[in-house]
């Protein structure tokens, strides 16, 4: 009796939780762009100038800068990933102005070192003596947030020159004279170093030491701001004329900030050109149509499977159908927790996974029926059937899991998404349609409430005498 009660409680509680949570659940699944509308572009990055290699850092930095640019345009959660050695995949779901995003992205990253625009000639002479001193530049504004540049610097002798650039709309905040561009830096010349106190600083190398000496000589005592596109990263003050062609930028950087700045400078020195290799764009209506059609197909397919199970296996079939519903619910739950984007191939894998989950039940129930026909009691048929079918089910599932893992490991794009859903499906189906369904059936069998073989879809006439 106790077992019957726990059986009923488990079933009712599960149904309650599912009914209560399902409406919210479905809305919080992140849908891919093929279901929601949006676009996906795969870029291949190559160096602007040619000859040089695309490095890991420059690729990551490019991806980061793309993310910033798309964010600035107000795109909804862009998903930007690097692939292989030179690819960047960009996915934006639910975006309205695709054209603007595309154009913005195509521009290469533009690194500039800017001054306030008023050259101060008197400073170019004089400080040649300590030219070899490398700790020349000291940052006054070390964060790479776009806060205001050093107020003192813009105050003194620059009033005249900054008149027009002081206008509110100026993204360069008065730094309107380009002193150095990314091209002036040695490719991969920037690195992170640490001073005696262990504070990180960025060491930079320039191609033309003379030009750098001229520029720094002119700007002694003034800030030189570092911009990526129109974003202020840092505005160190030039301490003295630097002739060696190398310099350090120090300041209150965190290690991560220093590394980011290093990557930015290296990227600026070697901007990557992005070429579209593949693109997919789905209108929102079409995506919704695909989603509706595929879901409807899934629901109809599932209902037929449920009816088939109940018809073939009666009471155990009913349990299998129940576990199948829990399986579907649980898999959606995993999608939400792991923040997995559901795409069309993913839904296909999901629906096929339902077939595989049911297979676990079919194998077990066939085995139990077989044992019953050979004359065993219901209890011992259940025990023997579950035990021997368990190994079969696990072998079959693990082999498929291996195939899924390999696909995930080696695949790209949709193959990977498909494999991920397949693996999640297999694992949840082991929990629901192997462990849970067996437990529920055992409650009923042990409570002796399934006395007739007919409850299992076995006819009395088929049972052999022992």
């Amino acid at each position, binding site marked *: 009796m106790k077992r019957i009660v726990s059986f009923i409680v488990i079933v009712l509680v599960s149904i309650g939780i599912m009914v209560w949570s399902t409406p919210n659940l479905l809305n919080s699944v992140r849908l891919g762009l093929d279901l929601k509308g949006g676009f996906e572009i795969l870029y291949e990055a190559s160096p602007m100038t040619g000859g040089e290699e695309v490095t890991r850092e420059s690729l990551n930095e490019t991806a980061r800068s793309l993310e910033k640019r798309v964010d600035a345009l107000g795109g909804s959660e862009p998903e930007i990933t690097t692939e292989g050695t030179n690819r960047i995949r960009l996915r934006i779901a639910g975006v309205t102005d695709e054209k603007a995003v595309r154009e913005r992205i195509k521009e290469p990253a533009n690194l500039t070192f800017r001054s306030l625009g008023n050259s101060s000639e008197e400073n170019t002479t004089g400080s040649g003596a300590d030219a070899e001193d490398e700790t020349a530049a000291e940052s006054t504004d070390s964060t790479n947030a776009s806060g205001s540049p050093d107020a003192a610097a813009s105050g003194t002798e620059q009033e005249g020159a900054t008149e027009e650039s002081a206008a509110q709309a100026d993204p360069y905040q008065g730094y309107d004279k380009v002193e150095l561009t990314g091209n002036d830096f040695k490719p991969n010349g920037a690195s992170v170093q640490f001073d005696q106190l262990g504070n990180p600083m960025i060491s930079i190398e320039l191609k033309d030491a003379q030009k750098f000496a001229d520029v720094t000589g002119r700007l002694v005592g003034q800030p030189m701001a570092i911009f990526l596109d129109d974003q202020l990263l840092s505005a160190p003050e030039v301490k003295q004329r630097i002739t060696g062609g190398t310099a350090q930028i120090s300041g209150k950087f965190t290690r991560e900030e220093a590394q980011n700045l290093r990557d930015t400078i290296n990227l600026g020195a070697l901007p990557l050109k992005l070429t579209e290799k593949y693109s997919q764009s789905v209108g929102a209506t079409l995506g919704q149509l695909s989603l509706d059609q595929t879901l409807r197909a899934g629901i109809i397919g599932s209902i037929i499977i449920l009816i088939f*199970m109940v018809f073939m296996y009666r009471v155990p079939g009913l349990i299998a159908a129940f576990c199948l519903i829990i399986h579907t619910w649980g898999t959606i739950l995993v999608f939400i927790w792991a923040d997995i984007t559901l795409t069309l191939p993913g839904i296909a894998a999901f629906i096929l996974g339902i077939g595989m989950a049911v297979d676990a039940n079919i194998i077990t129930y066939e085995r139990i029926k077989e044992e019953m026909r050979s004359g065993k009691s219901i209890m011992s048929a259940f025990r023997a059937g579950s035990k021997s079918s368990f190994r079969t089910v696990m072998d079959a*599932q693990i082999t498929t899991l291996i*195939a899924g893992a390999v696909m995930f490991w080696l695949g790209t794009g949709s193959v990977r998404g498909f494999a991920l859903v397949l693996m999640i499906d297999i694992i949840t189906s082991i929990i629901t349609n192997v462990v849970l369904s067996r437990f529920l059936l055992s409650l009923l069998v042990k409570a002796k409430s399934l006395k007739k073989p007919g409850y299992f879809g076995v006819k009395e006439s088929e049972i052999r005498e022992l």
Partner: protein
Amino acid sequence: MSSKPQAASSKWNFNFVKASKYFYTFSIVLTLAGILSLAVFGLNYGVDFRSGSNVDVSVSKAATQAQVQKVLADAKLDPEANITAGTDRVSIRFPEVLTDDEVETLQTTFNSQIDPNASYEINTVDVEMAKELERNALLAIAVASIGIVIYVTIRFEWGFALSAVVALLHDAFLVISVFSILRLEVNLTFIVAILTIIGFSINDTIVIFDRIRENLRFAKKQTPHDLEDVVNKSVSQTMTRSLGTVFTVFIAAFALLVLGSESIRMFSLAMVIGLLFGAYSSIFIASPLWLALRSKKKPSAAKPSKATT
């Protein structure tokens, strides 16, 4: 499905091993036809495998071929584009990649001339990408096969592993052959379908092999005839399960084919064909093949070197 439950393993009594030579012949003929077709015609690659742009438009009112033709002409786009017009969907395939501006011109012209509420799906591809995905998929199949061989060899023995892999490659290849012979369009989702078919094929085969392994423990293993009995018995005992499983997965795939979205139609078709091949090969190819491998090995089994179990 018959409504009457089967009497224990008697319903499917059939000499699968004896019949296997016909099925071998069938499979070999189909494989050869596939090789021939692939060599002569190759595959009918979809836009994923050909450089170009594919524009799918979902329209709220029917558009005719001529109307779309006029849109292309007015938008100064390639008149060579292949147009498929339907009541709720228009497909235009351009042999070259459209630029962003061309896409916009096309959309504005289409909206003004045919349907202001049209919704677009635009796919552009560089052939290299798809080819690379294809290579990746082939690599994945090769590596997955090795993984499966290792696992099955550990859990069973190498003969099972080899037969299972032959069966799965057979299924994958035959689906590719059918697509080549019938000139069906192959795109990226087709690759996903092939990978799934492999998953199912192996699942199906393992269940039968598991039963053979179990029956082997109680069977006398003297003559090849004894082994043949074991195979026949095992296949017939698992027959109801095989049919049940194929039926359920088939229903899911078939529902996707008939009711699912246009964009995964070829995927579903490949799945449906592959499932049938998968079930067929586990029953008629894999198990007899294992027997053939095992019997070949028999004379040398006296030597301890390679004997298993």
